[in-house]
């Protein structure tokens, strides 16, 4: 059995029964929400910011195109052909004053400028710059910013869909690896297990054991392996155009949650020496101790904050560089430019493969380092 999504565009061939049920439940959850909203009305926002150029001289501005590729979206866009967009609709889930509202993002008919209002449960919704707003009841046909409110958006967006896919992929890869060892015991690995073993041993020996210490590293291995492979898989998937390309790890909300995990785990496991170094630095004179207290307290937060920004900025910067090189072709309006742009974009893409691994490594390494300082035993005080 193969669950097929949108005319076989995305095929998930899974042998493991557990994965099959997992993926089916995710997919059915998506399709349950696919109640199509009917009739939309044509309306116009008064201040149309994305209005086309006033002067006849059309200069291509690459920034909106680049930013829309980097940002989250309500549908999974594949390509444009003959002025028509081909994309996979994703469910929109909104929490309004009148309760939960769900419809597919195709109800907007690729409108991103707030022209089509979707009517559902007596409420009207518009999409502007990939954000969904609710029109107030008294909004006229030509509405203004004061007629718009923002409902709580719980939609399965492009990034969330990508995350669910990568979770399914991670489950598939790791359950397969785990089953291999369950069946065969500690033998020389074969197939996918032989690939994963090297990486798992790398995380254990070169990240966890070195930085946390021989006695305590096993407790933190599940977390470190999880973030390492989650970040790495998503970095790599983000580099694949069309089927990946969701820029999940280049979303600051995702990296915020990942670094918040490190913050919580570090501080929950902090021992007496760790808190002692924060609140009452040993070996320093009393005035210096008082001076160091606020600095150390801020330091507790800046370390995960730096983790968050580093991953977000590295991955987003990589995507922006590739997209900027490609938009050179459109800026110069010449196909000859692709002779320069495409090799450079290829070069940067290959470099990004390295960065994808390096950032997963650095995030895990620094997490292990922070945890290591929190649990370290100090014999010499």
């Amino acid at each position, binding site marked *: 059995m193969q669950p097929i999504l949108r005319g076989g565009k995305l095929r998930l061939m899974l042998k493991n029964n557990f994965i099959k049920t997992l993926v089916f439940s995710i997919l059915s959850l998506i399709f349950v929400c696919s109640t199509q909203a009917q009739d939309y009305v044509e309306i116009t926002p008064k201040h149309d910011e994305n209005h086309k150029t006033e002067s006849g001289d059309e200069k291509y501005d690459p920034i909106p195109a680049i930013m829309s590729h980097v940002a989250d979206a309500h549908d999974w866009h594949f390509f444009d052909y003959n002025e028509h967009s081909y994309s996979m609709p994703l469910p929109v889930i909104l929490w309004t004053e009148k309760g939960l509202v769900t419809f597919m993002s195709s109800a907007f008919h690729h409108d991103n400028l707030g022209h089509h209002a979707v009517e559902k449960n007596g409420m009207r919704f518009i999409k502007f710059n990939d954000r969904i707003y609710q029109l107030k009841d008294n909004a006229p046909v030509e509405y203004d910013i004061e007629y718009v409110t923002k409902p709580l958006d719980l939609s399965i967006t492009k990034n969330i869909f990508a995350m669910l896919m990568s979770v399914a992929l991670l489950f598939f890869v790791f359950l397969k690896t785990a089953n291999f060892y369950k069946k065969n015991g500690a033998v020389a690995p074969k197939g996918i297990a032989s690939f994963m073993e090297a990486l798992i041993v790398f995380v254990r020996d070169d990240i966890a054991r070195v930085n946390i210490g021989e006695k305590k590293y096993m407790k933190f291995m599940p977390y470190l392996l999880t973030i390492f492979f989650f970040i790495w898989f998503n970095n790599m998937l983000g580099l694949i155009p069309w089927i990946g390309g969701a820029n999940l790890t280049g979303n600051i909300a995702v990296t915020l949650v990942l670094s918040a995990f490190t913050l919580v785990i570090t501080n929950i496991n902090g021992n007496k020496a760790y808190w002692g170094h924060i609140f009452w630095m040993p070996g320093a004179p009393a005035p210096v101790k008082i001076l160091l207290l606020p600095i150390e307290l801020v330091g507790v937060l800046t370390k995960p904050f730096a983790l968050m*920004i580093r991953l*977000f900025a590295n991955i987003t*910067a990589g995507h922006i560089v590739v997209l900027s090189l490609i938009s050179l072709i459109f800026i110069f309006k010449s196909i000859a430019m692709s002779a320069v742009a495409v090799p450079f974009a290829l070069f940067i893409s290959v470099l990004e493969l390295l960065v994808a691994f390096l950032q997963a490594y650095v995030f895990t*390494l*620094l997490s292990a380092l922070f945890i290591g300082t929190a649990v370290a035993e100090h014999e010499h005080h």
Partner: protein
Amino acid sequence: MYAAIGAGLSVIGAGIGIGRIGGSAMDAIARQPEATAKIQTVMIIAAALVEGVALFGVVVSLMGL
């Protein structure tokens, strides 16, 4: 315009920092090739820290765009 200058300035800082780290690591590895693995790990940590600060600058510049 100012955003681009800001991004450029933060990249200069990162360039100096990472260049010094890389150069020193080269020296260290040349002196003690048997410690290569350890030096590389520390080098990557230090480079990541420098780069993190530079990326703060780039992100702030992007916000000003």
